[in-house]
């Protein structure tokens, strides 16, 4: 290990601290959301839904595996957002739609673009826990996937704080289901 030339602690610290702050803030705020409807399918034609019975799946993060606090929050927020879009929660028999979700977490490496004109910009490479929340709507009569929406973003530091995790869930679910048309 050697001291890097031209990069002293006093000079570099504020710059790097700022870059780190900006990167961290951007990483937390960014949420990539997308969805698609199966060809020829219009989710707005469906009116009632119920939760699909599912086997416990691993998420890739032991903190979230079989975590009822996580599970309860996702379901409650999906229920709220579906209700806000006119969907009605049906009794267990005879719903138009089955709803299921899946959460997965894996580590990603973030390599930022470096500004070649800026000698101070070394590009802070970072690793973070990337989370993907996926929501599926399935037609129980045909067992066909009608609509799938998902949100991807950094979960770094979000699971260790229950409040942060809950805010993150609410925002992700809302943004995913924003892409779902209101039922007719």
């Amino acid at each position, binding site marked *: 290990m*050697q001291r890097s030339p031209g990069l002293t*602690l006093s000079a570099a610290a504020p710059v790097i601290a700022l870059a780190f702050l900006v990167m961290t803030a951007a990483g937390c705020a960014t949420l990539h959301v997308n969805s698609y409807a199966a060809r020829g399918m219009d989710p707005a034609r469906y009116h009632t839904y119920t939760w699909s019975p599912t086997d416990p799946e691993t998420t890739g993060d032991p903190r979230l595996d*079989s975590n009822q606090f996580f599970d309860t929050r996702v379901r409650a927020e999906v229920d709220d957002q579906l209700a806000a879009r006119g969907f009605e929660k049906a009794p267990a028999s005879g719903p138009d739609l089955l709803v299921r979700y899946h959460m997965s977490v894996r580590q990603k490496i973030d390599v930022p673009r470096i500004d070649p004109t800026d000698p101070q910009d070394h590009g802070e490479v970072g690793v973070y826990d990337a989370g993907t929340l996926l929501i599926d709507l399935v037609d129980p009569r045909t067992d066909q996937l009608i609509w799938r929406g998902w949100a991807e973003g950094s979960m770094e*530091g979000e699971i260790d704080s*229950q409040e942060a995790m809950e805010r993150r869930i609410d925002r992700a679910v809302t943004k995913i289901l924003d892409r779902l048309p209101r039922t007719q």
Partner: protein
Amino acid sequence: MRRFFEAAGLVVSIVTLTSCATMSVSSHVQRGIDFTRYRTYDLGPADALPTGDPRLDRDPFFQDHMQGAVVRQMAAKGLEHSTSGTPDLLVHYHASITRQIDVNRTDREHGYCYDENCGVRTVEFESGTLVLDAVDTRTNRLVWRGWAQQAIGDMLDNRPKMARRIDAAVARMLERLPVGRIDAPRRDVGTGER
């Protein structure tokens, strides 16, 4: 072959970083319930889920030490270990090991570099997670989950070190369980602690 070099370049070195050795402890809790009503507990059935590392699967040393640490810490919190009848809480644990990658951010923040180009040094390490679950036996609901995460390095080859780490992890996790004696140390629940 090229892929091999890319992978080799990624894993420049496997060293124990001090940042990796820090234990991270936190918890989730069911809000709005009175935890003071929980007075007895028992250990739940042994966890059959794979740990992600065959060296730790069904390891009797690990299981015995883990259970002993939980029993000691729960006794210190004033909860009674009930092996007959129905306890108020069932405590389960799960251990898992995953491969994680870290970069030498800490060093660079302080103006140090490993080489002239101030290149990025990436390390791969094994991260261990211990999860403790407390389930209300009346409702069969999870009321509290605590976890501790740490780079485990050579811990699996070093039994005394493993024993010390388990003791420390269980003690710090159960500090966050809001039950037991009033004078037991308490912390704000649900806030991340690094």
